[in-house]
């Protein structure tokens, strides 16, 4: 089914299940510990041995030698696959850094061996007996040092990341109010709670991996090309994913080493990557340096807007494009956006939740706060004043699909009690606490991707949905069940959903906040085909009939759908060209209140609110969780998250969950999230857009702005930690 024109009124506008808060159908399994994650699948194959990955101890260079004898003779060892004895594995379009093989080391903790043993303890102990000698090469590990060698980056579809409109320099030069500020964001880690984990088993030349992965079809094809086998010979199964945030978009060393280990050991191998290896072995969000220049009239109308971003990656390509939201958010006739990328010798940078936009807001939305102060205009007002209408400000050829940012800001301000905020920073004092409020707007694209599913109706009226879509905590199981039940007119509890198996029809997968909109549209397409099939069997027009309560009705006639017998239909939703005329975005207004200890400088977030405009919200209960989860990660980005680069040796020094700090319960107050009741007819028949990344676009800046409002100290070097401002806090007096 092709979605080739804006959606008109359809069954989802009269929905009984879609759009209603629904507890997750996989919830009871998750809370009782019965949901099977990758490393826990004792039942899928017998004789699982344990693998332990050894990581390189240098950032760049070559392995001179590996002494493997002691490890090979250690108790319980079944097999060792080592870089010195193995050709480099192949690559895939999805990976930037080599996953294994050969003597060349491209980054610290690159996998150089896997030890397979009868038990976990034996594998770990034997791995420690491997002695590796290196010839280390010089590398550059400091973004500030490689910045000058940067070139213009390319975007996700190969487009140049430099855009100009009008005459920025002229307009900025003549602007009545100006901001020119530089912000830095550090390297960040996904730090999902479930480690990379895989059980791999070969049956002849066929490989099955029970793994933890967001994009099943990408994973299947990538693993085939990395191992040099046919994609048809690879099965990937990942029904439960313990968090990904982009870190599990791609095949990682756990899957590759488990597959190689299983081949060598001639038996299934299970690997859960040890936590201290994860941060340097896998991917991270690259650090950025961002310069924002805003010029406005004394009335606060922006006339000139420039946002430049510098980041680096191991290949010198694929940077962290912090400029992505800037052409979309605010008007201004004279513009420049550019994202530059350099080569750096650090582990691979790759997508982490709202790649580009998350750190981009940490610069742009703080610059807007600075502009508001300069211009003497309330920050909420300033954003409404410069809101875009009709077309994308940085790309006037492109229409805006559906946008209610000003409503988000107004309703949010009202709800949050924004009028209580003191415009003058550092003025609100309550005992030992300096208090402050901050606001930021949020933009994140609302993409869709083609997505397929299979729906099977049994003779007793039960419906099974199968698709290789994943649920990475996003609530896919439930929204897919809601969509199928709604379309087939069945109760929710007669629908079962099976996900994450590459034997199922290929879905959009989970990433870029496209999963919810795309996968449900694909399930809808399959259900439409099933309705037709039922109609053909029973002699009515399945497209015209109304399906409700197990009954199809048309022109006063009714049919029990079970009379059609057991039936199964595949379907896929694809998208027509008309969509390229539009920018489909999601919008939010984010508010934060903080109190800062006037003595110690410690920041406590006391309130957070997000007002979101993302079209139909398929399941408000789980969508809210996605948004507040984004707000938590955003709070972390602002106040604590920071992969510390050891610039001498070229690795992330704080590579575990004690060193890499993320927010904990004590850091996060009650959070509020409001969804506007909007519908976007351009996105899909569901009129629904994703929210999983909208939640991390803006709250980071709102917290930063609140800290400034509380203290009067502007820290432009994230994270905002006490060492950067303690000496500048207002006098205690």
């Amino acid at each position, binding site marked *: 089914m092709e979605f080739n024109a804006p959606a008109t009124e359809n069954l989802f506008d009269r929905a009984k299940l879609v759009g209603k808060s629904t507890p997750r159908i996989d919830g009871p399994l998750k*809370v009782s510990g019965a949901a099977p994650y990758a490393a826990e699948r004792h039942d899928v194959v017998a004789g699982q041995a344990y693998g332990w990955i050894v990581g390189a101890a240098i950032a760049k260079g070559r392995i001179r030698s590996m002494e493997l004898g002691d490890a090979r003779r250690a108790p*319980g060892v079944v097999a060792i696959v080592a870089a010195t004895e193995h050709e480099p594995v192949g690559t895939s379009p999805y990976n930037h850094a080599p996953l294994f093989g050969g003597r060349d080391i491209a980054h610290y903790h690159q996998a150089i061996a896997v030890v397979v043993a009868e038990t976990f303890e034996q594998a770990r102990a034997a791995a420690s007996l491997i002695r590796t000698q290196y010839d280390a090469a010089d590398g550059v590990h400091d973004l500030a040092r490689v910045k000058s060698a940067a070139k213009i980056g390319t975007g996700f579809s190969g487009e140049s990341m430099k855009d100009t409109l009008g005459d920025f320099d002229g307009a900025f030069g003549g602007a009545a109010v100006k901001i020119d500020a530089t912000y830095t964001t550090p390297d960040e880690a996904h730090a999902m709670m479930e480690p990379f984990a895989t059980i791999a088993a070969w049956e002849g030349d066929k490989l099955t991996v029970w793994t933890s992965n967001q994009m099943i079809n990408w994973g299947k094809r990538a693993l085939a090309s990395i191992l040099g086998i046919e994609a048809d010979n690879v099965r990937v199964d990942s029904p439960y994913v313990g968090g990904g945030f982009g870190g599990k978009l791609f095949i990682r060393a756990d899957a590759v080493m488990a597959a190689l280990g299983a081949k060598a050991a001639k038996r299934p191998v299970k690997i859960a990557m040890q*936590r201290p290896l994860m941060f340097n072995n896998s991917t991270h969000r690259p650090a950025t340096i961002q310069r924002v220049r805003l010029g406005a009239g004394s009335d606060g109308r922006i006339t000139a807007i420039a946002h430049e971003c510098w980041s680096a990656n191991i290949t010198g390509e694929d940077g962290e494009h912090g400029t992505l939201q800037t052409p979309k958010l605010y008007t201004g006739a004279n513009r420049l956006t550019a994202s530059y990328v350099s080569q750096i010798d650090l582990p691979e940078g790759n997508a982490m939740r709202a790649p580009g936009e998350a750190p981009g807001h940490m610069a742009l939305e703080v610059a807007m706060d600075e502009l508001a102060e300069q211009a003497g205009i309330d920050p909420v007002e300033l954003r409404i004043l410069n809101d875009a209408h009709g077309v994308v400000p940085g790309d006037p050829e492109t229409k805006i699909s559906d946008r209610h940012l000003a409503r988000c800001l107004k309703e949010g301000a009202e709800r949050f009690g924004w009028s209580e905020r003191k415009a003058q920073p550092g003025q609100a004092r309550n005992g030992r606490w300096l208090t402050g409020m901050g606001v930021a707007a949020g933009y994140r694209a609302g993409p869709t991707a083609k997505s397929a599913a299979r729906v099977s109706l049994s003779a007793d009226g039960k419906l099974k949905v199968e698709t290789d879509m994943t649920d990475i905590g996003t609530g896919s199981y439930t929204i897919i069940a809601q969509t199928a039940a709604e379309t087939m007119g069945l109760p929710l509890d007669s629908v079962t959903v099976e996900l994450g198996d590459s034997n199922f029809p290929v879905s959009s997968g989970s990433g870029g906040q496209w999963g919810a909109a795309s996968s449900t549209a694909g399930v809808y397409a399959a259900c439409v085909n099933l309705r037709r099939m039922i109609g053909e069997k029973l002699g009515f027009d399945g497209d015209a009939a109304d399906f409700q309560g197990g009954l199809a009705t048309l022109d006063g006639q009714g049919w029990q759908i079970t009379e059609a017998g057991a039936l199964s239909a595949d379907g896929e939703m694809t998208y027509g060209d008309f969509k390229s005329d539009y920018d489909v975005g999601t919008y939010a207004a984010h508010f934060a209140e903080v109190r800062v200890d006037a003595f110690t400088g410690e920041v406590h977030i006391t309130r957070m609110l997000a007002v979101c405009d993302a079209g139909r919200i398929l399941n408000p209960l789980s969508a809210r969780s996605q948004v507040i989860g984004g707000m938590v990660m955003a709070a972390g980005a602002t106040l604590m998250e920071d992969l510390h680069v050891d610039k001498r040796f070229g690795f992330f020094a704080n590579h575990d969950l004690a060193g890499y700090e993320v927010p904990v319960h004590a850091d996060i107050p009650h959070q509020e999230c409001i969804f506007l009741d909007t519908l976007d007819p351009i996105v899909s028949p569901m009129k629904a857009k994703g929210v999983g990344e909208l939640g991390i676009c803006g709250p980071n800046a709102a917290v930063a702005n609140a800290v400034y409002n509380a203290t009067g100290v502007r820290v432009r070097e994230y994270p905002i930690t006490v060492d950067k401002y303690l000496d500048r806090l207002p006098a205690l007096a």
Partner: protein
Amino acid sequence: MAQDGFLKVSRRGVLAGGVASAAASRASIAFAQENSGASAVEATVPLKFTVNGEDRQLDLDTRTTLLDALREHLQLTGTKKGCDHGQCGACTVIVNGERINSCLSLAVQHEGDEVTTIEGLGSADRLHPMQAAFVKHDGYQCGYCTPGQICSAVAVLDEIRKGIPSHVTEDLDGAMQPSNVEMRERMSGNICRCGAYSNIAEAMAEVAGA
């Protein structure tokens, strides 16, 4: 060189066995000769304990953590391994009524102990009130930290009931309240990277109020 390596392994085994024998005084330490063709020696120790009300008996490598005894040997995989280093709380279980990070203790230290895991609190069709409250308030997303959160939450409410103070307890004399701040402080050893904290606090408040 090879000799050195083996000496290290066997010394570690013996040391771990020594620690274990103090904890498990009734346990006799068995030394199993590995048939790897070398003279390596590894200790296994018999362990008897109760898991979710059932008597269990295992013969374990002394290096096996309580977490791996549960996940790998008893195949009770509800208890999660997030870090294996006491940094995340995903492995939280209740031992003799108190919550611990099961990755931080060796299984053989638990001779005679009563261990309750998430599977022991309730099952998918017979949920413990805390499990039901997590479903109702959507106190999770990916679900990986969730068993640890729930075991912690149950134990935290018990700690508050028993009047055990925390870092944020304001009044050490009066009856202790399961306030939002009190619960958040005590739950801070359980990381949720999906960021379900606000919902978890609501689930706990509902159970605490009941």
